[in-house]
Structures are given as C-alpha cells and as structure tokens.
C-alpha cells in the first residue's frame, strides 16, 4: 500500500536525535507522516500554552540538540539505482533537484513542487515518495530507485511496456511518476484490483487525461510480472 494514501499506518514515532537510532525508521519522511507530524507539533504548542511549566520540564528531558548541518554544502552519499554517489550538497537541497540537476536523472519531474501531483515520484526503501518534498540529506543511506533504474537504456520494464501498449500516456510528462507509483504498488500487491489501482495511483495527476490507459496498464503489468517478467 502506498505510504501517502495509507489510512492503516501507525502514528509516526517521535523523532530521536540523529545517531541515536540506526533503525531504518530514522529517516523516513513521507507526505502523510510529515502532515501528521505537523499536526502533533501544533497539539504540542497548544499544550504548552495550557500546561506551561510541565511542558517546559518535559522538553528539558529531550535528547541534546541535533547536529547542525549547513547552510554551506556538506558531503552526502546517495545510493541511486544501486550506485553510490557522493556529492557536496547544501542541506536544503531536495532529492528531486539533486537527481535532476546533479545526476542528470531527469525522469522524475518537478511540476507542483509541493507534494500534490506525484510527477516527482521515486521509490525510497520500497515506498513511493514525492522527491520534491524530501531533502537529499534525509535520503542518505537509503535505497533510492528512479525510473532510469527500471531497465537498461534501450529496454523496457514490463510496467513501461504496459503503459505503451495501453496508451497510458499522452504528453508523457506525468508518466514517469505514474510508472514509479505503479512499481511500488505492484512490488507490494501481486493481484491488484481496479479499486486498488485507483487508490494506489490516486496521488498522481495527469493533465492530458490518460487515466483510462493507466488503469488498464497497471492491471496488465501485474499479469505480466506474475508470468515472470523482470520485476
């Protein structure tokens, strides 16, 4: 199930200080958990107004201040499509800008630039993520898959082939995002349903109106992958 559309997700854990936790959870950032996190933060603000000293006391028990990075560039190592890249990046640089401007991986697109349209979708540790709203430093140490990693140049992944065969694309600008959302979905769900497709790809927007082709493409891709196409 797609992270940003999941309703069954557990509430996010309180973030620990960097280095205090080496679990894969430590750097997970998604739109939904970000929004939920914001919600929790605003509860905390109103609580501090109500409780004053109690909250201040609790805050003093919090782990020591986080390590300060930037604003100047810092070395960041990203694992993209199985390859490691060490780059000097300002900490504010998004994963999307890094992929596009520094690694020339331009399949992911910046369209809305605020986690609404899904054109920038890449798969991070198996989850589809809006790379316009993930900082590159937060993606360090994680497994980043972009559309360029699906198949060698000149070859087509079964999902991409299904988008061609079912004409699930017109201008094609949104298509890499759809393909990557589809990839993350089908990695989890071997027997997708029509309703499941609508939900899993509900975070991607298309302006030309290719949803009919996309619906068919996802279902057909699942069948192809079942029959043993490359995953």
């Amino acid at each position, binding site marked *: 199930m797609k992270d940003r559309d999941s309703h069954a997700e557990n509430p996010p854990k309180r973030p620990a200080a960097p280095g205090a936790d080496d679990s894969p959870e430590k750097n997970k950032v998604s739109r939904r958990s970000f929004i939920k996190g914001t919600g929790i933060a605003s509860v905390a603000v109103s609580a501090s107004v109500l409780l004053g000293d109690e909250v201040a006391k609790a805050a003093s028990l919090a782990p020591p201040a986080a390590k300060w990075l930037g604003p100047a560039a810092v070395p960041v190592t990203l694992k993209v499509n199985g390859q490691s890249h060490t780059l000097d990046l300002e900490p504010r640089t998004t994963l999307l800008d890094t992929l596009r401007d520094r690694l020339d991986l331009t399949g992911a697109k910046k*369209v809305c630039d605020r986690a609404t349209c899904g054109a920038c979708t890449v798969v991070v540790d198996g989850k589809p993520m809006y790379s316009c709203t993930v900082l590159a430093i937060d993606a360090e140490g994680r497994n980043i898959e972009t559309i360029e990693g699906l198949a060698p140049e000149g070859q087509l992944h079964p999902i991409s082939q299904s988008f061609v065969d079912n*004409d699930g694309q017109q201008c094609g*600008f949104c*298509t890499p995002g759809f393909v990557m959302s589809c990839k993350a979905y089908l990695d989890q769900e071997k027997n997708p349903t029509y309703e499941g497709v609508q939900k899993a790809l*509900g975070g991607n927007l*298309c*302006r030309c109106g*290719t949803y009919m082709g996309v619906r068919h493409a996802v279902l057909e891709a699942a069948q192809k992958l079942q029959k043993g196409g490359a995953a």
Partner: protein
Amino acid sequence: MADYKWPPADKRALIGKRISRLDGPWKSSGRVKYTYDINRPGMLFGRMITSRYAHAKVTHVDTSEAEKMPGVKAVYTFPTSSEVHWEGQEIVALAAETENQARDAARKVHITYEPLPYLVADAEPAKAGAQFTKEQSARTTGDVAAGFQQAEVTSEGRYGVPVITHCCLEAHGQVTEWKGDSLTVWCSTQYVSGQGAEYSTGLGIPANKVEAICPVMGGGFGSKFSADAWGVACAQLAKKAGRPVKMMLERDHELMVAGARPSMYADVKVGAKKDGTLVAWDSQSWGTGGPDAQGGGPALPYIFRIPNVRRKHTAVLTNIGPERAWRAPNHPQMCLITMSALDDLAAKLGMDPFDFFMKNIEITGARSASYVEEMNIAASLMDWKKKWHPRGDKASGPIKTGVGLSIHTWAGAANNSNCAATIHPDGSAEVSMGTQDLGVGTRTVVGIVAAETFGLPLEAVTVNIGDSKYPPAGASGGSSTIGGVSTATRCAATDALNKLFAQVAPSLGATPDQLEAVGGQVRVTANPSKGIPWKQACAKLGATAVTATHGTDRTITSAGVGGVQMADVSVDTETGVVRVNKMVAVQDCGLVMDLKTAESQVYGALIMGVTYSLFEEKIMDQQTGRCLNPNMEFYKLAGIGDVGELVVHMMTGKGYDERGPIGLGEPPVISPGAALSNAVANAIGARVPELPLTPNRVLAALGKGGMA
C-alpha cells in the same frame, strides 16, 4: 498529376488500426528529454521576479544587491516593466549557477510600486463599471419579438463558466544557448517552425539564426505558441552570461500568467412551441479574458440555428494574466450556456431532452445527419431511455442520480505544413517536417501515413519532427495539425515513391504508373506476382536517394465534425458532492488515422472535461488583486478515481472516411461541461447555474428549491 487519395478500407494496412504511439517507449522509460530536462554544459538556472500587484507603476527597480549574490551571472530587466497590469507580470530575470542561488538572489531584487486601480473580480458589466467594460458585439436575426409571441413555452436562466487556466504539467519555458550569433532554443512549444520569427522579433536577429528544438513537450492545450517575454529574457541572460540558461516558470507563475480560458456568463431567454420546435433566443452575455478584449463575442446560441435570435456581448477587462487559446476557444462556454438553456426548456416542456434535441436536429445544419446517428449510438451506449427520468430523482435517500446530454462541433481545418520524404538506396525511408507532437500522436500519424504509402511496416520509416531545421509546418492549434501533416506526408511520400517507380519500372517491364508499393514489395498492380522486394527496388537508385517535398493538400482533408456526449452522475444532496458514474462520447473526425491514439484523445478530453466541470476555477481576490489558488492543492485536477467509467465510440466508415482526416483535439472537450451540468439538473431537479459543480454551488442550488 499524382494520385494522393487515401487508400480504400480494404487496402489499408495501417491507417485506422490500433497502433501504439512511436514515442511511447521514450516516455514510459523516463529517458526522453523534455525542454525542462535539458542540462547543457555550464548551464545556468534562470528565475523571474514578478509583480505582486494587479496593477501598478513600477517606480524603482534595484538589482544591485542581487547582482552581488553568490553564483549570479546575469540580470535582465524586462522592457515593459515601468507599469504592470496583472499579478505575476515579469519585471526582472536573473541567472545563477544553481536553482538555490537563483532563488536566494531573487529575494534581493528590490522593487517599489505605486499601486493603481484594478479589477480582478469576474464581475458582471454593471458591477465592473464603464472603465472596465467594452461592448463587443450585438446581432439580431429574424424578428425576436414575433418569435417569442409564437413561443408557447419559454425558459429563462443565467449560466456561466469561470476563468480556468491551462496548468500544463511542463511549465512554459526554454533553454537558450548561443554559438556566436546563432541561437539554439529548446522550447516547450506548439509551434516549432514559428519560433524563429518569435525570437527574431524579440532579439532583433535574423529568424534563420534561430534553431528551435522540441521533440516532445509536456502539454500546451493552446497556451504555447509564442516565445513569450520569458523566452526573450532567457536568451538575453544567456548572451550576457555567455553560458546556456534554463528558465522554466515556477508553478505559481505558470498558473497566474501562462494561460487563462476566458469566463463567459449569459442571461438567456429561449422559447419553443409545445411540440418542442425552437422559435426564439435572446441572450446578454459577458466574460473576461484579462486586460484585452480579443476576438469577437460568442456566437450564441451554439449549433442550433434558431430562427429568431438577439444576442449581445460585453467584454469585461480585468487585471489578470491575459487569455490564451484553451482547447476549442469559446466553444465549451457557448456549449454550456446553450445546452443548459435548452435542457431547462425541455424540462419546462416536459420533454426528454433526447427527444427535444432530435426534434430540432435539422436546424444544426450540415452535420445534422451525423448528429442523428451519433445521438442514437450514444443513447444505446448510455442506456439513456432506461436511465432518464423527469427532473428530480424520486429515489429515497440522499443520493440522487441523473443523466444529461450535449452536442458539439468544431471545424478543424488543416494548417499549412510541409513534408520532405526521402527514400534511400539502402531501403531506409524518412519523413521530415517542422511540426510538433503535443502528446496527441502527431509523430505516430506521420509515420503511419508514410509507411502506408510506401507499403512498409511502421518501424521501417524514420520520422523527424520537432526541429525548426525541417521543412516548416503550421502551429498545432485549433485541431489543424492532422489535416496538415497527414496530407503533406501523403503527397510527399507519394511523389518520392513515384520517383522510385521511375527507376524500377524498366526492370519490371512496366511503366511507373503501373506500379504499386504494398507489403514490402514494389510490384505491378495488375499482376501482383510480378514484383521485387522493397530493398531490392531501392538498390536500383544507385548512389542517390530520392526526395520529394510537398505541402498540405486540402482536396484530401476537410473540416467540420460533430459529437454527442452523455453523462450519468450521482449527487449527494447532503454534502453537495457530484460523482461521475459514466460518460459516453460519440465522435466524428473524418478518416481515423490511428484508432488507439484517437480514442485516447477523446478519453483525455472527457477527463479534462470532468476536471473543468467539477473542480477548476482560477479564484481572484478583489481585495488584494491576487490569485488565491496558484498551486495544485487548490487549483484542483481530477485524479484517477474521480472520472468514472468512460466509453468512447469513434464514427468510421461511409459518411466519415471519405472526408479525410480532420482534427480531433478540440471537439470532444467541448461537451462535458454541459452534459454534466444537465445530468446534475436531472438528478437534483435544480440547475446549478455555473461551473464548476462544486459542493457549495450544488447546495446553493438545492437551497433555492430542487425537486429532490
């Protein structure tokens, strides 16, 4: 004279079949480079600083601090920047080493304004005031007073469509690079061959010093013909910096200035006899498309030539980003107004709108016979007679269902395009033209026509488009592309083939006009066993390829198509939410070239139609003069779960094929608004007078008295 006629149905190997688009693999692999993806060595990133006022004098522009910011290599002040007429109008552009540096530097540009009076509200003329209105057209046909005297039933209403934007996913923009005095522009454009003239005007350089490149582009919908002020600015920045510059519009800027479809509202009175015969129409309409009143007033009523008509239109001049052509300019608005008014009249007459439209179908003119066919097919695909009920669904519970219909037309005459077709001695074949593929399948259609003509498989033909170095082709606007490119390709390929035939004929003991190219063979038409493989035939060319160039041929294309659409919706009368259950589109486009991409065009138009009918509105705030939703959270597009079941039926065969290919981009996007609005009225028993059909508008209509 060569015979360019399209092959008959039984002789078509490719035309009209379901063929996957040629550039599909480039796109779904994420490998193809759009303008936005071009990364040139040493390239800088451009960024614009734009007006925050709807109307103001720009009294001072200070870029000195910005120029000293890290990474900044060039700064440019727009020549029009002494007065700005809408929010988002460009004042300064700069280029820096990284996107972050460009953003930082942009914050250090200091601009002082002296605000001036403005109007941004989508107001009716009386409220807008004389300063902001312009009478555009008034016209009377027949005797309107006498017409209404004949009318036994009349209906009056106000209907309208607000300003919406294009919201192309690839923002407007370009990458510019100079080599000496020559300029290369990678641009997201609907008019590759026209960019030379655009940059020539803007930069004062010869048009032939400009090469425009656009192999693929991320959506235009009518908004991407010009180089625009930012194109010229980008070239100037590149010149100043001596390095390539990429400058794409930010999303907010894109939604504020890079394309608006004008609003249109009308007070309508329409009358008919008891049997449904339409006799009179009277409308006062108005709308805004920004600071200029371009074009004429709308031709109301739409399609139905009612005998007695009076219409008057007033343009409202507003300080919003100027209008640009949006798929089928004026038609979706005229269609919504007319078909809503007619649907309301049908309800007053107590008639099923299907019967009411059919009763008056004769006055739709030349396409009336097609409309009858299409209405019947659509009704069958929608199960109309079973689903339609008088206004107001009587079912218990809060969810009401209803159906609505609409018809539309579009000319779609061919543009002027030129094609060069070449057959090489090694058997390879290529066609080249300076046209562009907006995502509609132009590249594929050009390939289909060439391959069909050469009797080759599609893969055997190389299609070169999207570069101004190829023979000039017209802009892709108004559904004019297919008529231009397919006929030019057909003629050029036929001429090249005839040159090949001239070389091959002696060896087959025939004259050139006795030969045909079919199934990878060049053979004698009257004796198909007498032939040689294509490759062998081409070898007879010796060392020299044959090439032919030809323009649009209007004898094998035509204009004027019709379509019918029906919608089935559910409306939650407690929340006001409208859900699309099903839409049916029956569409004519003459001779279908590629059934797969043609259907996709219509599906896409239905989906875009659902989007503008349910969600889209550019919301302007009169208090501040600013756009309140220049982003994709609040300027909503339909998602995959919002569009319901879609059924498309393309009209083909006799009555359609012989008309030749006719453009398909515009027509199917015209009717969805009217069909959906009529379906909602049928469901809830009240007219929601304006699009989009949002919950608040639906609840307001119910509050005024639905029959539900």
